[in-house]
């Protein structure tokens, strides 16, 4: 069985004026260590789905399992990364990274040591006492990832984590973050609008329909390339085929 399992998850938002059916019977299974990418039209409910998995909102129906056990919240095995890096401007980089530990009251010696290891390993040592405004966009996103990893989550949810960066930085940062996630052996579920980015990162791509989101199609991404990284993936011969397939799938929105 999978690491993370969504079983018939549905979500309807209610307001006084109307109700918005956003997710309809979503069934997803993500294996341990797998990198799954969700793509779908704007406003179809991708962020909603991640928020449900993170426990920020309760689905109207359906269950979520982690390691085959029903997930109960608050759950400290799930980390969430947003489109904006949401670093706290009034805290130093180091204090940003240990924020989660502080809130969970887990500032133990081992955890602080672990935080320092990650800081060192991923090249942030010399920036520890800087403030977020002194860092570049790509660097900030790296800090945001380390901040999540410090809590040692088993699953990472990433909601368009690179979309605020310019194209060049975006390629570099996605490569970097992919490598970190793989090196730390995390399972990842990511949302993106960028098909090429999806293919370059994903083990599997799930295409969602427009609202209410249903699973439309899944693609297992198999690239005949050695030492796959997001940057090298783009050179794989299969890359453009996947691109066209997914493009067509997304293009069929309203039919």
């Amino acid at each position, binding site marked *: 069985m999978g690491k993370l399992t969504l079983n018939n998850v549905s979500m309807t938002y209610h307001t006084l004026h109307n109700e918005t059916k956003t997710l309809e019977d979503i069934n997803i299974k993500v294996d341990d260590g797998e990198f799954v990418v969700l793509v779908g039209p704007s406003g179809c409910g991708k962020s909603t789905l991640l*928020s449900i998995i*993170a*426990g*920020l909102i309760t689905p109207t129906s359906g269950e979520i399992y982690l390691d085959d056990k029903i997930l109960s919240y*608050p759950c*400290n095995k*799930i*980390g*969430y990364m*947003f*489109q*904006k890096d*949401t670093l*706290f401007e*009034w*805290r130093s980089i180091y204090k940003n990274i240990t*924020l*989660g530990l*502080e*809130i*969970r009251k887990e500032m133990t010696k081992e955890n602080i040591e672990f935080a320092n290891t990650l800081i060192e390993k991923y090249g942030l040592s010399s920036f520890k006492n800087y403030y977020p405004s002194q860092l570049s966009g790509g660097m900030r996103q790296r800090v945001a990832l380390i901040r999540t990893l410090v*809590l040692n989550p088993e699953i990472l949810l990433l909601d368009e984590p690179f979309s605020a960066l310019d194209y060049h930085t975006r390629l570099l940062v996605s490569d970097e973050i992919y490598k970190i996630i793989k090196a730390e052996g995390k399972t990842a579920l990511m949302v993106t609008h960028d098909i090429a980015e999806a293919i370059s990162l994903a083990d599997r791509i799930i295409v969602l329909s427009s609202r209410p989101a249903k699973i439309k199609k899944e693609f297992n991404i198999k690239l005949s390339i050695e030492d796959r990284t997001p940057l090298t993936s783009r050179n794989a011969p299969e890359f453009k085929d996947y691109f066209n397939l997914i493009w067509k799938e997304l293009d069929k929105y309203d039919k």
Partner: protein
Amino acid sequence: MINNTPSKEHLDYISRVKRRNTLITLTRILILIIFIAQWEITARLKIVDPFLVSQPSRIVNTFFKLMQEGHLLRHTYVTCIETIIGFISGTIIGTLIAIILWLSDFINKVLEPYLVVLNALPKIALGPILIFWVGNGQPAIIIIALTISLIVTIISVLTGFNDVDEDMIKLVKTFGANKYQVLRYVVLPHSLPTIISTLKINVGLSWVGVIVGEFLVAKEGLGFLIVFGGQVAQLDMVMLSIIILSIIAYIMYAIVSKIESIYIK
């Protein structure tokens, strides 16, 4: 960033800016001197009536006379203390109420229209009622000062609270933060600049409250001196009090601005 050897143009630029700034300062001082001088001269030549508009030399004399009698410092001290208590308590109590409203959306919604009405109401109008309630004395003055700044504080601090990026709150929630932790780690630090700038506004409001309060009830303070001076037709005393008032109000404002610039970079 800065070159070790600044270029000629840069040096020129710096000296031009400096010259301009010196000119501005000199002009300011000059205006003040001219104003005081013409006041003194026109009063001496009886072009204006010194009984009605006073006269710089008489103000200075009154200053030394009152200083000798030893009351002036006391009056100034009383007014300052009332003002400081007024704006600090206004800011603290206002922030606390804003926190309560932030914590309970229900209370917030219920009180919303009342806040709007109270905000629109000129608080000075409550003066006589407050005096009736808390008595004819210093507490009444402080409460008038506090009432003036309280509602504005609640409203602007609460606006600051609601201004926090939703994603930041979501983030700490995924860390397992409860509502108090959201407040402590996100909302309060994020709103600190708002709270401090509210403090700055409250300094001004508190002065208004204290002076009006002293007009109404006081036996001491600069506001009392102003009213008393008016009643005994001592315009020198009134003018002196007003001048002291503006200098001290400016100093207090400058101190709070300094605090602000330390916290808000």
